[in-house]
């Protein structure tokens, strides 16, 4: 029988988004009289208040069903949420595997639930022009906790990056108190000890360490990285690029803010980007870095690392304890590994990052609901109040967890979660529905770190001392510009990626850098940058 393939489906959705892009409505919503939409809402609701609907309410929600803790209707989370807020959520269940596709479909078909969570900053953009999602920035007055956190944590610049060309934003982002970095390198500390080496603090020190390892084990590549699919060098180009001031890989943005010049520069042509390539090329040339690092599967890199064929690889807190340690303990019990603080470079002790998490889109239909105000208050309480965030993460005091006087959380004796309490027979996520990725994220650093291990806390302590790079100013395109920009962006990005790998692997000499920049110009780099900087200037004038 005829099956619609994923690709066809995506094409169809893309085409549809383009078609409806033309017919967005622009009537201002600000100042709309909300008095008919106040059923169930609290008359007085402010920071620190517990939201409780004045009448039982039901809201539909798009629900990402995680296979590790599939939704159960008898979770304590649902009943307790109802008890505290008077709200019942009716989930439209979507498997995690294809969440984004279903989200596009139901929004495109006008069949979307009112609350659409698990949307990452940037993912809302294709829906903006269709007029099917709500410009939430018009209704922040209904959300005291959100506003409070933005003000208290000085997040305005971060939130401003979400603004579209009309000056509004359409996504309620998850908010972090501080930049939270997780990705770094895992290093075999037992090898360091054996060779009398220190944990490298900078990329140059890492180079020395790798050289020493190579001298001892000449047949091996000491460093082989993972996370090369689908973005080649996703993690490595990102963290090395950050040290130089031009992140690639996952962190690649076509344009980066250049504060001294007061305008945006094309990342792939920045001198900082070139310096990163020079460094990585040196590692590959001296056979310190496995050339497969940029494109191999995670499994391949993992196998090399746990079987002792390499000594350094990419990691985050989770892969360290899940992917590397268990097989190593079995196959190579003497091996010791650690996640080292991200090495630094010419920029010194800095960190790149964003304090916005995935967040919530709201269907425009919600505005017609007589419970609209109550819904916004409810979202504000569950996702943005300290109380709501603690409830979503740790559950009910005395049942799933306890909080002591100093604010430290502890699981109840019979409850387990991520190995914190291996004795516990019940599981915080699976059996109670808390610490659910749909509801629990962001919040205070204290709350975020309440589940961290000692070693991860030590890593975070080092990273916290680093100075955050300033947030880049917003530069939203208009609809027509976006269409033009994406026509230029894709070939430029593909070319940068291709040449990045060629330069690093030595297939192209770095002496040809100027020629490469000329080739980028031939691919409309300058026109693209004019578009970007034009959008920046316009936004600054109109909404700055």
């Amino acid at each position, binding site marked *: 029988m005829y099956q619609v393939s994923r690709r066809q489906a995506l094409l*169809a959705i893309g085409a549809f988004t383009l078609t409806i892009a033309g017919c967005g409505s622009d009537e201002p919503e600000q100042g709309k009289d909300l008095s008919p939409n106040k059923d169930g809402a609290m008359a007085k609701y402010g920071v620190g208040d517990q939201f409780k609907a004045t009448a039982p309410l039901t809201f539909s929600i798009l629900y990402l069903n*995680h296979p*590790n803790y599939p939704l159960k209707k008898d979770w304590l989370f649902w009943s307790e949420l109802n008890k505290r807020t008077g709200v019942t959520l009716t989930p439209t269940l979507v*498997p995690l595997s*294809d969440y984004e596709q279903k989200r596009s479909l139901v929004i495109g078909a006008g069949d979307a639930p009112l609350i659409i969570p698990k949307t990452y900053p940037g993912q809302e953009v294709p829906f903006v022009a269709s007029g099917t999602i709500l410009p939430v920035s018009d209704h922040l007055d209904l959300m005291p906790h959100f506003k409070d956190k933005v003000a208290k944590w000085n997040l305005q610049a971060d939130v401003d990056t979400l603004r579209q060309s009309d000056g509004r934003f359409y996504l309620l982002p998850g908010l972090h108190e501080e930049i939270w970095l997780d990705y770094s390198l895992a290093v075999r500390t037992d090898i360091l000890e054996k060779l009398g080496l220190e944990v490298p603090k900078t990329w140059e020190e890492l180079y020395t360490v790798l050289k020493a390892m190579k001298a001892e084990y000449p047949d091996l590549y000491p460093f082989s990285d993972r996370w090369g699919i689908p973005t080649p060098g996703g993690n490595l180009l990102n963290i090395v690029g950050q040290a130089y001031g031009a992140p690639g890989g996952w962190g690649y943005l076509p344009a980066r803010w250049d504060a001294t010049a007061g305008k945006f520069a094309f990342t792939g042509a920045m001198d900082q980007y070139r310096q990163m390539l020079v460094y990585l090329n040196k590692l590959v040339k001296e056979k310190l870095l496995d050339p497969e690092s940029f494109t191999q599967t*995670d499994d391949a890199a993992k196998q090399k690392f746990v079987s002792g064929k390499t000594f350094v690889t990419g990691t985050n807190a989770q892969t360290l304890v899940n992917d590397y340690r268990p*097989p190593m303990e079995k196959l190579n019990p003497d091996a010791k590994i650690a996640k080292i603080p991200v090495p630094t470079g010419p920029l010194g002790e800095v960190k790149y990052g964003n304090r916005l998490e995935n967040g919530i889109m709201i269907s425009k239909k919600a505005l017609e609901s007589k419970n609209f105000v109550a819904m916004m208050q409810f979202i504000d309480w569950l996702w943005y109040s300290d109380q709501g965030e603690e409830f979503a993460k740790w559950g009910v005091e005395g049942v799933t967890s306890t909080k002591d006087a100093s604010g430290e959380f502890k699981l109840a004796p019979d409850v387990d979660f991520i*190995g914190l309490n291996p004795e516990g027979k019940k599981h915080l996520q699976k059996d109670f529905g808390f610490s659910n990725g749909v509801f629990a994220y962001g919040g205070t650093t204290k709350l975020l770190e309440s*589940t961290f*291990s000692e070693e991860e806390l030590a890593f975070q302590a080092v990273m916290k001392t680093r100075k955050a790079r300033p947030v880049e100013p917003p530069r939203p395109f208009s609809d027509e510009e976006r269409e033009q920009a994406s026509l230029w962006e894709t070939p430029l990005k593909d070319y940068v990626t291709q040449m990045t790998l060629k330069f690093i692997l030595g297939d192209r000499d770095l002496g040809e850098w100027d020629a490469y920049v000329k080739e980028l110009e031939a691919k409309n780099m300058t026109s693209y940058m004019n578009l970007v900087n034009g959008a920046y200037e316009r936004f600054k004038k109109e909404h700055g």
Partner: protein
Amino acid sequence: MVTLATSRGYRIFQAVNAVILTGVVVVTLYPFVNIVARSFSEESYIASGQVNLIPRGFNLTTYQIVASDPMFWTNYRNTVVYTVVATLISIVLTTCYAYVLSKKHLRGRKTLVAIALFTMFFSGGLIPNYVLVTSLGLKDSIWAIVLPNAINVFNLLVMKAFFEGLPVELEEAAAIDGLSTYGILLRIVLPLSKAVIATMVLFYAVSYWNSWFAAFLYMNESELFPVTVYLRNLIAGATTSENAGAVAGDLTQAAANIQSVTIVLTLIPILVVYPFVQRFFVSGVMLGAVKG
């Protein structure tokens, strides 16, 4: 005397043939055997890439874990029900349509063929389909899976060609003996068409068994998903990182061998059915092709 079977050229051909086909068999079988081996192996051996054809650290724990998840069996049952019902509907509808089209004297036959062919090349698109199924009230029911696409045009044409190949005289004789139109179809034509029907059953059943997209689109409850969606989600979950900064690995993490076990369990039924239907399968396709 040199016959075809003893000629030099033929023997060389056979040797080359054997080599190439053995290669094909190895390439086809290896991933399967590897999955089976992984399903019985211990996680650490899989992680370090030491499992190829033979399980290492043999254990059955994962089978027990997967089999103890009630949702797996619920979804498994759904797959069986969806496959059986959908195949039944498809076979009935395809047979009826194909039989009608095989009659040369049917008026408007060309138009009917054209209507079917049109859907082979053009479709309304994803969102219109979704809106249609939703407004018909089929969402969250088995009908959303078994009714749209019930007739596969390719299968329809194969069947039509097969029916056209049946001798007209047979049906004329039956008519003279007093059988009605439906009697002819049920008592004469269908018993003679076992081969092509078995083939169609196989085609339809395999594709419904493997399909996940329709269920993913139209079902909003995990109790209604087929096991393919369950499996897809499980595999996706194993590669998604959450709970960063955790103290230790969590038992809820779907491990590599949980995937293998689920894949094996999902494959078994269709694998068992296949050899029994296959003899029809080969002759059925050939019959339709040659006589058409």
